[in-house]
């Protein structure tokens, strides 16, 4: 059940109505829980039972940690929870990746292998709720939060349908207090929720889905297109993945807000970042923060030597890449971004006392150049991320190689698979969207406009959102992770 389908609209309208007409808070939790379970089992009922069971186990482990005074037992329980969650994640998501890599290594060494390929269905959103469960038990162990007493509240924390399949990755410390809090109908909340949903639908249905029509054919056969078109596809993919995922996140935040819950913002105008560190503070924020808090800091962060700090950063980002999927191109995407971050840190140290250079970089043209450079290097790393193996046996690396060759060796080929005017219009829309959202008083100014003007503008925006989507709408990119 995709967010941008009529089926979800009816589902949500029913849940929303039943939820708000029910006066009993406990029953409301059950309504959301039942809706969330139904939402997930609409993809696969068996996997819904698995996620339900693993969540109950995490609940019991955390309760066990709270009731136990013995540190060793608490540690053992924590280990059990982490290893259990990671084992499930590895089985469903990474088993074939590891087996395949092992098989290739053995074959490269001249040995014969009969390692099987497992027939596994990847539970949708497994990476998201596994990380939520791990962060919960770790936070309970660290004493940052109390273990939740009520199973229904804990189940809702993990299964809450707006964030279940593609995040944001919610922290128990943020979410569980909200489950306890009594929800009161409020018009301002409805406005915020509605605006977020509208914005998310526009990003997904109009921008991301339309850009996919340019990106997909070019990435499938880069050698067939001229260099300028391949460059367009590289930029288009950066915009597509941003609008697809941030669109999903906006709809998730909007739905949650309409039900009285606040989820963490997942994107904060990432393409306005003037360096790669700033970029990762704005891109998929809930994952970046998770990696920082539960991998990078425990590894020692940057408190140790510079070399160790760089190693920690690259390792954390490599795992961040691996989180996206069981394939080497994701690993390399993560490592590459880790190297970018280390490079940026080194640059800052080296240029610390170069006042003239700093002043130049802080000027408007300097900032614009930095923003463009950040966008460029991130977009190029996405070439590795996006390149997939082809039915003809071409590996994802060979495919990425073809992309880079077309990018940097001027070549002839077919023109753009979609009219260039569509690409330029969508690019301009994203840029203008960033510029508008970055204006400091934009929201206050907007809220001061007369209600009929705001209402008509939003209705027109919805109208355009319904007219411009392409005939075919691919599912959200981040569902596969």
């Amino acid at each position, binding site marked *: 059940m995709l967010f941008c389908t*009529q089926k979800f609209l009816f589902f949500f309208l029913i849940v929303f109505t039943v939820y708000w007409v029910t006066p009993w808070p406990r029953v409301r939790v059950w309504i959301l829980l039942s809706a969330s379970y139904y939402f997930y089992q609409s993809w696969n009922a068996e996997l819904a039972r698995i996620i339900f069971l693993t969540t109950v186990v995490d609940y019991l482990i955390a309760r066990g940690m709270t009731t136990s005074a013995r540190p060793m037992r608490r540690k053992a329980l924590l280990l059990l929870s982490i290893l259990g969650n990671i084992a499930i994640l590895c089985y469903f998501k990474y088993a074939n990746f590891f087996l395949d890599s092992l098989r290739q290594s053995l074959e490269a060494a001249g040995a014969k292998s009969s390692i099987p390929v497992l027939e596994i269905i990847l539970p949708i959103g497994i990476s998201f709720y596994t990380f939520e469960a791990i962060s919960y038990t770790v936070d309970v162990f660290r004493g940052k939060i109390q273990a939740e007493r009520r199973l229904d509240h804990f189940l809702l924390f993990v299964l809450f349908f707006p964030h279940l399949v593609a995040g944001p990755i919610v922290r128990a410390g943020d979410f569980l207090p909200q489950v306890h809090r009594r929800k009161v109908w*409020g*018009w*301002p*909340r*409805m*406005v*915020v929720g*509605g*605006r*977020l949903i509208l*914005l998310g639908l526009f990003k997904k249905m109009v921008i991301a889905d*339309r850009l996919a*029509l340019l990106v997909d054919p070019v990435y499938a056969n880069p050698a067939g297109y001229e260099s300028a078109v391949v460059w367009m596809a590289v930029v288009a993919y950066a915009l597509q993945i941003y609008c697809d995922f941030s669109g999903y996140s*906006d709809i998730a935040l*909007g739905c949650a807000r309409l039900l009285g819950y606040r989820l963490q*913002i997942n994107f904060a105008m990432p393409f306005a970042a003037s360096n790669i560190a700033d970029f990762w503070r704005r891109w998929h924020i809930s994952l970046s923060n998770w990696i920082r808090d539960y991998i990078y800091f425990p590894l020692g962060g940057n408190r140790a030597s510079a070399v160790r700090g760089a190693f920690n950063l690259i390792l954390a980002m490599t795992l961040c890449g691996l989180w996206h999927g069981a394939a080497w191109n994701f690993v390399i995407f993560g490592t590459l971004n880790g190297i970018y971050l280390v490079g940026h840190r080194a640059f800052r140290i080296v240029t610390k006392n170069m006042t003239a250079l700093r002043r130049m970089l802080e000027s408007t043209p300097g900032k614009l150049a930095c923003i463009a450079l950040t966008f460029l290097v991130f977009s190029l790393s996405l070439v590795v991320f996006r390149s997939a193996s082809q039915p003809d046996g071409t590996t994802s690396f060979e495919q990425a190689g073809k992309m880079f060759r077309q990018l940097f060796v001027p070549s002839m080929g077919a023109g753009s*698979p*979609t*009219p260039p*005017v*569509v690409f330029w219009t969508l690019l301009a829309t994203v840029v203008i969207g960033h510029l*508008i*959202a970055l204006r400091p008083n*934009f*929201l*206050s100014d*907007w*809220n001061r406009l007369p*209600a*009929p003007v*705001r*209402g*008509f503008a*939003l*209705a*027109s925006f*919805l*109208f355009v959102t*319904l*007219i*411009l*989507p*392409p*005939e*075919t709408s691919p599912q959200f990119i981040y569902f596969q992770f």
Partner: protein
Amino acid sequence: MALVAPRRRPARSEIFWTLGSFLALTTLFVVYVEVWHPEWYDREHQVRRELLNDRTAEAPDRPVVLVAGSSRVVVAFMPERLGPIRDKDGREALIFNYAHLGAGPRVNLIQLQRALRDGVRPMHLVCEIVSGMLHHDDLPVKEISLPEIGVLWPHSNKVRLVASSIGFRFNGVYRPRTALLRSVAPKWVTRSATDKDVALLALGGDDHWSRLDEPSEDEKKLLFKLAVIRFKSRMESYRLDPKLVGATRELMNICQRENIKLTMFLSPEDSRFRSWYRPGAEEVLLGFIEELRAAGVAVVDGRLWVPDDKFTDPHHVKTDGAEQFTDRLERELLRPLISGQIAR
């Protein structure tokens, strides 16, 4: 833009103004489509209509013969294959495939009304009878404009008709969006929409659009399954729906009134399809055909005209089946009909 909310009263006003404005915009848009561009609801008819208008404009004096029917006729009748056929006065007839996907008695009726409204007055209407569609025929609300609902009114369950029409127009912006873009911003029409667009030859024959010649095994299974879902149970509990019979009678009446010579035919079905007829179903169907003949309508039974190996699924033919069907239709129906040799 999204995360700072206005205060309570302005927030409530914003929601009501948004909903109200959207309702107003949608209503305006629906009215615009209904009044000025009803063809946006039915792309297939739009393409056929433009082709037919072009052909009739090229030679206004040619007698027009429209061959109407369902997807079976869309794929099976190839008018471009026909040699010149002349009427008694020696004029060469313009024979046009005027079929429509999913057409049963009600869509056939609407198609005739559309032709008349466009100023096309055929000399002959050769119309298919799909036996299963006299038992049940899906309400064609997605393809018709509001005034055309009036055509369906006497021949439909009125509650269902009203509910489906309103439900469809509730989503009145999203559905005709491609037609709108085609008209105002053609560069924004996607390639998939263009690739799947209705592709017809000059006389309305299928130009590799809906006919499938070499389906994969999966496609074959799917097509068979669809045919089973749509027709098997209808044929196993076969009876005539009075409303659909009524639509056919109205078609006859209009033809009589407008002096259009109506001829009907049963289109090819393979042996699997024919095995679905319940015992006694054939008699029910033949009884209806006798009734038509008694009313002066010639009816030809073409169900056995194409052998099983020339079918894609139980009731749609491949290209070689279409050629065979077209040749036989020409020989046994069109040529004698147009030249005035079929006794009515």
